[in-house]
């Protein structure tokens, strides 16, 4: 049986801690970038089938803005930073001061896209460097890529490695948002999907391998 279906509570807690440390560092970076207070929610570790994963992002047809990066190195995997179009617009407005645009425009503003891409870079980079320090393995992110499209089409790309081993995905999900301004909420989801072979490595490094 695949270990994905047989995680211990202790291992799940360890994965939550990974979400804590990564997203905590990312929230700090975002806070500095926007010069405002950014909080993070308690991470959730979810074992979901593929269709349930799409529901986490609002359903397969929901339009999302996602920054996707492939993690190479000793514990490879995939990472998404997912925003709704409204959340993405909120981020861009904060960063650039642009107002007359939407990332779902037929020809989106180049500066808006570029700002969003850069924000994805910074957040994913800070998440991963914290993670890499914590589990003490080398993780190298690919260049993050921004796509705005249907959630199903985007998130399925992150499941391909996994889907050869399991019909379930382990997702470490963390939400960051700010409490300051409820009219312009700044909010986003991290989804970390380690490759199946990475789990034993992560658990070994952290001393929670039970076999």
């Amino acid at each position, binding site marked *: 049986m*695949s270990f994905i279906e047989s995680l211990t509570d202790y291992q799940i807690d360890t994965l939550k801690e990974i979400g804590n440390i990564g997203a905590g560092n990312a929230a700090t970076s975002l806070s500095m970038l926007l010069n405002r207070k950014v909080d993070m929610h308690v991470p959730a570790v979810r074992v979901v089938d*593929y*269709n349930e994963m*799409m529901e986490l992002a609002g*359903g*397969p*047809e929901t*339009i999302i803005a996602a920054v*996707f990066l*492939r993690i190479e190195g000793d514990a490879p995997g995939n990472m998404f930073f997912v925003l709704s179009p409204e959340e993405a617009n909120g981020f861009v407005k904060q960063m650039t001061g642009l107002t007359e645009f939407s990332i*779902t425009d*037929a020809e989106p503003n180049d500066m808006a896209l570029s700002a969003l891409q850069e924000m994805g870079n910074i957040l994913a980079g800070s998440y991963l460097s914290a993670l890499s320090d914590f589990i003490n393995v080398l993780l190298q992110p*690919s260049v993050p*890529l921004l*796509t*705005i*499209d*249907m*959630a*199903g*089409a*985007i998130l*399925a*790309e992150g*499941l*391909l*490695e996994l*889907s*050869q*081993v*399991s*019909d379930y995905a382990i997702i470490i999900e963390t939400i960051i948002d700010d409490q300051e301004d409820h009219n312009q909420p700044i909010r986003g989801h991290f989804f970390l999907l380690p490759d*199946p072979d990475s789990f034993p490595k992560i658990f070994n490094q952290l001393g929670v391998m039970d076999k």
Partner: protein
Amino acid sequence: MVGQVIKVGIADLQFAKSPDVLRTSGLGSCVGVVVYDATLKMAGMAHVMLPDSTSAKKSAFNPFKYADTAIPLLINTLLEDGARKFALKAKIAGGAQMFSFSSSNDMLRVGVRNVDAVKEALKAYRVPIIAEDVYGNSGRTIEFSPETTRLSVRTVSQGTKEI
């Protein structure tokens, strides 16, 4: 006559008869495969993720996930339900590349490989492909009506078209 919309999930296979319609949402590199008998107004739709089940790293896998195992199941189930082999036709959509990585990782070209595998599997059963909307870099939602045998394809940027 208003039928039901039968949803097809990821790595899933479903069947419908008129007036019901088959629908799958958010196809990226995945491929939606419809095989139908137009006279009997019956159809099946598969949502395949990967080309080849020999890449499965465990023995008990979901056969709907792979082109080479889902399509034989799709065709054989239609035949068991009374469809006529000579009358079967196919329409396919999907196989996009959602992210343009320059990485050598073969996984990221999976859209093209999925389309190739689907075509090969359909060819093995001599089921002709009447229409296709494949490749590109947009997600698609597709809906097939066994009544009209039209496949509607919706993308975020280009709206809905029928093939």
